[in-house]
């Protein structure tokens, strides 16, 4: 990540606040992210003025986090990787590597950003299996209707 203070993207995100969680919809990439409490606290402080150290103090205070600065780095890396920070270049480091560094693998309270790809309408409806009679590609789970039969 760059040396600039982290700043959350403003454009192209729709955000819903839930108790202890945040759901962020990326309008351009059609991906929905679920931020747990720790990731939410970090994301909400990515305003371009709050430092890593200040974020770490919030995690310590709100969640009793240990190695809070490392946890902030973990959260920022995840947020950057998911394109939720402005102008941040994500480091190519896996979550597992971070956890090993923290020595805290398996701890549920660590910052977590879970992501799903939001489907196109055709992928979110009932489709026909291979061999079923069809008349258009959209009807088949495979997306292929050949000679009125789903492939």
């Amino acid at each position, binding site marked *: 990540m760059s040396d600039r203070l982290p700043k959350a993207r403003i454009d192209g995100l729709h955000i819903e606040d839930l108790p202890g*969680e945040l759901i962020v919809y990326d309008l351009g990439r059609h991906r*929905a992210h679920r931020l747990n409490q720790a990731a939410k606290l970090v994301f909400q402080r990515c305003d371009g003025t709050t430092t890593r150290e200040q974020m770490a103090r919030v995690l310590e205070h709100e969640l009793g986090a240990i190695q809070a600065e490392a946890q902030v780095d973990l959260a920022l890396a995840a947020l950057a990787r998911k394109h939720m920070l402005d102008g941040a270049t994500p480091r190519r480091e896996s979550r597992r590597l971070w956890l090993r560094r923290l020595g805290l693998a398996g701890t549920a309270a660590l910052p977590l950003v*879970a992501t*799903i790809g939001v*489907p*196109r309408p055709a992928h*979110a409806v*009932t489709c026909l299996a291979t061999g079923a*009679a069809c008349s258009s590609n959209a009807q088949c789970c495979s997306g292929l209707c050949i000679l009125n039969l789903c492939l």
Partner: protein
Amino acid sequence: MAYGVRLGLRGQAAAALRLLRGHLPPNARPTGVRGVDRLYSLVLGGDGPRPGVRRLHILYADHVRIARSEDLDIVLSAFESEVEVFVAVHAPARVFVHAGVVGWRGRAIVMPGRSFSGKSTLVRALLNAGATYYSDEYAVIDVRGFVHPYDRPLSLRTPGAAPGVRPYRHDPESLGVRRGRKALPMGLIVSTRFREGTRFRPRPASAGEGVLALLANTLSARMRPGVAMVALREAVAGARVLKGPRGEAAETAQQILSIANCP
């Protein structure tokens, strides 16, 4: 008009219009409004064989041909799928989630999932255990987060039938099942799919995980994410969320109802 979406039907004979009307989504009713959101046109292929001539039935959505076959059932089935998706994506005040839904003690149990995840089988098992039928296709959610019935016959695959065989439609009443009529708040979201030899041991999940499970099966999520997310946020607000693979439907249904009974 269905769920606020204006549909036009056109055919060169009254018979064509009758056929199309029989395959409209539930709640579709005639209206006097001018202008439509989509116009469907059915051209029937004519009667009887003629040497060297294929009697093709053709269906258009606006100017785009969406089905063409000598088998009228195939064309009508394509119409039904197409019009259902169109309404589900464009309904202005409803969010359609691909899910099975039953009513239980004044609350909705919603099971989002893709095709062949075993939704209809689980819905049928829950109905056998005394739940009320809401839908085996869509959870229709309003902006307050309430779930409305999607009044379509229950669609069940014959056990052991090849995957290509179309499911049969059963009227809920013919199965001795009660139909739900009024909108219910969501009580339980069960994100599961059938896995052979598994016992249903769900883990409680967070409201956010519930939103993602619903969003992954929401038809209008890409077109109107703001509306979808507000409705889903409201829907999960008072609901519990369970995740995990399931085994046999009857046993799973009993477990789901026991969990739903717990305050």
